[in-house]
Structure formats: structure tokens, C-alpha cells
């Protein structure tokens, strides 16, 4: 029976709920801008990992290398876009 119980899904479901409320706490708690941003960033990254690995099961099939390369490429593009936008719109303006 143990194999039939969708452990990963349940862990992922509860985990994503907990992370959502942790992120939402920034609205309710009176924290500084920096602390708020750190909470949001950290919970967002963990949330993305939970979604990708526990729900979308990347890394469990034969083509996991392709999938991880594509995911990391997209992640890299995202980082570059954010840093470049900050450079163009805030730091270097």
C-alpha cells in the first residue's frame, strides 16, 4: 500500500500551501522592505522547485538532462533579463 500513496503529491501540496502563506505574511506582518523582499524571493524559488519536481516530475524520466538544461537556460535568461533591466532602468540611469 505504501507505494500507492502519492507521498510526493501530498508533500508538494502541503508545501506549496505553506510557502504561499509564508509569502502572504509579508502583507500582514510589518517587516522592512529588505526583509519582505528576501522572504518573497526565497519562498518563490522554493515554490518553483516544488512545482517542477514534486508536481511536474522533472528529473524522473530518461530525458531529464534535456529538461534540466532547458530549465536552467530559461532560468539564466530570466536572471539576465532582471539584472539587465535593473542596469538599464535603475542603476545605470
Amino acid at each position: 500500500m505504501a507505494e500507492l500513496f502519492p507521498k510526493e503529491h501530498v508533500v508538494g501540496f502541503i508545501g506549496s500551501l505553506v510557502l504561499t502563506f509564508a509569502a502572504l505574511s509579508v502583507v500582514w506582518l510589518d517587516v522592512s522592505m529588505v526583509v519582505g523582499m528576501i522572504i518573497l524571493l526565497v519562498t518563490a524559488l522554493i515554490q518553483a522547485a516544488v512545482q517542477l519536481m514534486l508536481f511536474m516530475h522533472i528529473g524522473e524520466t530518461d530525458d531529464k538532462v534535456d529538461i534540466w538544461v532547458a530549465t536552467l537556460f530559461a532560468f539564466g535568461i530570466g536572471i539576465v533579463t532582471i539584472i539587465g533591466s535593473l542596469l538599464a532602468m535603475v542603476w545605470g540611469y
Partner: protein
Amino acid sequence: MSFDAIFAPLSEPMVFGTFIGIVVASLAVVIGLTYFKKWGWLYSEWLTTVDHKRIGVMYIFVAIIMLFRGGVDALLMRAQTAIPENGLLNSAHYNEIFTTHGLLMILFVAMPFVIGLMNVAVPLQIGARDVAFPRLNLLSFWLTVAGAILINVSFIFGGSPNAGWTGYFPLSGPEYNPGVGNNYYAWSIQISGFGTLMTGINFITTIMKMRAPGMTLMKMPMFTWSILITSLIITCAFPVITVTMAMMTLDRQFGTKFFAMSDGGMDMLYANLFWVWGHPEVYIVILPAFGIFSEVIATFSRKNLFGYGSMVAAMVVISTLAFLVWAHHFYTMGHGVLTNGVFSITTMLIAVPTGVKIFNWLLTMRHGKISFTTPMLYALGFIPIFTIGGVTGVMLAMASADYQYHNTLFLVAHFHYVLIPGTVFALFAGYHYWWPLIWGFRLNEKLGKAAFWVMAISFNVAFFPMFILGLDGYARRMYTYSAATGYGPLSMVSFIGALGLAVSFILVAYNIYYSFRYAKREGSDPWDARSLEWCVHTPAPNYNFAVIPTVTRLDEFWFAKKEGRDLQAGKIEDIHMPNNSQSAFWQGIAMTAWGFFFVWAEWIPAAIFLVITLAFMLYRSFQKDDGYHIHVAEIEETERRYDENGGLRGAK
């Protein structure tokens, strides 16, 4: 939404005349279809088909219609500016025309044409029977059409967008642009963007998962490689424009202040986000062109492609660099030296992989036995003209010099020198090259070559003067100028070139009619080509390959021909095929209506059509439809008929 507001543009005689023309033409189509009893055929064979080849043909059909519309816009612009102080168009009308010209040519000519060719060729090149998600493919097509319809009805119903194809804030914001024009802009890009994003995902999956046995990534034809990279760029870039257009809609229709100049908004953030998508978009339309030229040049030089590995590496490098350069579109916004320096350097870096590709093509031709067919002429014309575009691009890439060139006709000349040889020539090369795959005959070579020469010469006549005018300080998007500026004579030359381009379009269109009427029906592989798509019978049967070929090397088909092997030899088995999809077609119609009512802020009908759209998606989620099988007897019969008739379907 009052009727006065909807039909306001019709008070202008030119718009009214066009409207009447469209009504008459549509009536003629409806009457023709009814008279020849073709409605059922149109609906079941084309509008709801999931066959990738037919979807590709429909994409290209839409692209050519939109090329006509965008071309008329261009002619009007050149006519208006041909002489100083011309009164053909007023300034408001001119603004609308240059906006729709840019939007149509990029999003509804270049994109559907590229996607059409990749639909036609990619599954055949990798030995697949269809794309990975055939129905999603059809839905993508109808969403592209939905976007095209929205942008095209705008000039009759309420007015076209008029803030440039880039739609920069604050000009396109609600304070300066209260009409519906720029709502059309947002929704047209938004809905067609959904379709393009789905196409990107579809083709990544197709190419990664559905290649013929033995075809490793480094044995794929170069066009397929270019589409894999293009699809990757689409998937990374299009979410940005989706979010940007959503923010634009929120600003324009719901009073948010993302891009406002007050209340903490940031108007130039729009330009930033637009080009985070917009620059990769340039590579989305140019990389498939590189792929097409690689196929065409190798085929008609009778040699294998020089430097296959470096070609792939160059495209992979471009896929990353494409995302690193966007700020060069707004150097003059007022960034510091560091920012402009960083983006200058990344921009110049792109010339390196592009140069690698140019040299590879030249070396492919070296010692080759070149045959001057129409597709090859386009490829040969591309290299020198595109190089002028590339070199002026490096000039523009220098941020300090760009302060001089920015927003002048020099820039306009540059990007036409890149996009017309790069994209338009490539699309026409691919269109002539793959035409026999679908129809079983080649387009007339004489007419094709005539069209090429008229196009190539007129293009230079139309756009070269713009370099000089731009350096003289002629700003783009000016609807007129005084005689004292001295811009008159060269502008007239440019107008004459534009007329020549119109003639070449007529030749291309006439060639379709002429070839359908008179061209000799031919067997498979009329070009003596190299890649796998040519080993099917032409016109390609709906199942493509009776037996999926096994691949051992690049250009397998070429070597099989030399060795006299039949790539489709083997045991024929039942073929599993997907059923047509009616819901994709109707969902596209529903989303057109949804977009239209959203543009007009008519919330009740907009909500109704949104619910209908969601209902279609729900229906599709629970639909049990396992497709059908083509049985062995039927395949054998089809194949036998092909063999008897020299590769022709139903020929007598």
C-alpha cells in the same frame, strides 16, 4: 459602445472605399463558395484539419494576404512622402498606417510565414507523421488568425492603433490615446502571442521526441536545427510580451499606473519590457531564414553544408546573445555610459556568429556545381544585401554614434536591409523550394526569377536613398516635410522603388495562378535535394511516410539516392492518425469575439465569449478521442497509385 464611435473612421473617403472593397470581395468569396458547393470541403478539409502540411499552407495563405495589406500601407506611406507638403494622407491617418504596417509585417507576415514553412517542412525533415500536438497546432493557427482579424478590423471599427508598432508609453497610454486603437494593439498581440507560444512548445516537443530512428541531434537537417533554436527563443521571449500587453491593458482599461508618468509609474519600463521580447523576436524571424538558406544553398551547390557543427554552435550562441542586447533599441533614453557600453559590446558580439554563418555559406558554394534556380537566386541575393544591413547594424550598435542615427530614416533603411533579404527573401526561397512537396509541381521558374530580379532591384531603389536621407536628418514617422529640406528628390526615388516592389508582389501572386494552370506535374524530389522530406511522394500523402525511414547520417536521403536504396522499404503497418478538430476552429472564433468586445470594454459580451472559450478548453480536457487508423490495404493502394503515376496523387 455607440455606433457613431464604431464607424467614425468610415467618414474618411479612403477608409470608406477600402471598406466597400472588402465587403465586395468577401461577398464574391461567399457567393463563389456557395455556387461551387465548397463550404463543406473548406470546413472539413482545411479549416478543421490537423494535418501539419495543410495548417502550414493556411499559415502561408494568411501571411500572403497580410503581406498585401502591409504592402498597401507601405505604398501609401511612400506615396504620401514622395513629394514635399503632400496632402494624400493627413497626419492622424499616416500615424495609423505606419503603426499597422510595422505590426502587420512583423507579427502577421513574417511570423505566420515562418511558422507556415516550419509546419510544412519540419515533421517531414525529421521523419515524423505530424507534430507532437496536432490539435494545439490548429488552435495556434486560429489564434494567429484571431489576432490578424482584430488588427485588420480596427481601421474600420473605431480606428487603428497609432503609437508606432512599438506602442511606447506615454504616447500609447490612456491620457494621450483615449480611443480604442491601442486596445486593439494590445489584444491583437496578446491573442496571436498565445498561439505563437503554443507553437514554440509544440515544435520543441516535436523535434526532441519525434525524430526518425537513428537521427541524433547532430544528424538533423539545418532547417530543423534552426527551428529548434527558434522555438526555444519563442518559449523564453513570448511570456514577456504576454505580461507586457496585460500590463498595457490594465493601464489603458483599468486605471493602473504601471507605465504612467505619475503615481510611481515608469513609462520607459514599457520600452524596456517591449524590447526584452522585441529583440529576441528579431531572431525568431531571422534564424529560420538562416535555416532555409542553409538547405537551399547546400541543395543547389550539390555539396554538403560546410561547417555543420559551427553552424549549430553559431545558432546556439545567437540564442543566448539574442537575450542580452535589447537595450540597444533605446540608447538615447538617457542611460549612463556603463549601461550603453555593456549593451554596445553584446550587440557587436552578435556579428561574430552571424559572420561565421555567412562564411560557411560562401564556402559551401565554393567548388560547388551551382544551379541558378529561383530559391538559389533569393539565397544569392540575400548575402550581399544582408551584409549591408549587418554592417550598418554595427554602426548603429555604437551607442555614441547612435545619438546621431536614432529614429532617422537611416535606422529604417538598416532594419529593412536586414529584414527584407534576411526574412522576406528567405521566406520566398523556402516557399519556392518546398512548394512541390505540397502541390506536386514547381512554381514557374521564369516568373519566379523575374519576380526575384524586380524585387531585389526595387528593394535597393526603395531603401538605399533612406540611408542618405537619414544621415541628412530625415526623422522617421514624419508625415510630410517642406521643400526647403531637400528631401524631395530622393523620397521620390524611394517611392519608385516601392512601386517596383508592388510589381514583384503581383508577379509572385500571378505565378501561383499561372503555375496551378500550366505547370507540369512532376514526381518526387524535383530539385534533387538532400534531406529526408524529399523521400515522400509528392504531393505528400496525409500520413507522410508509409514506412518511417531509419537514419544513419546527415543527408541520409542524398546517400540513399546515390546507393539506390529505398528509404521507405520495409513492412507497412497500420498508421494511427489524429481526427480533425472542430473545437479549435470555434475556439479561435470565440477568442476573436472576446478580444473585440474587450477592446470596446463591453463587459457582458466579453464575459460571455470568455466563458465560451473556457468551455471549449474544458470540453477538450475531457474529450475522449483516440483518432483513427489508416489500414495497410489503404496505404498500399495509395502507394501503388503514386508509383504508377510517377508520384502524383490522383493524376490521370
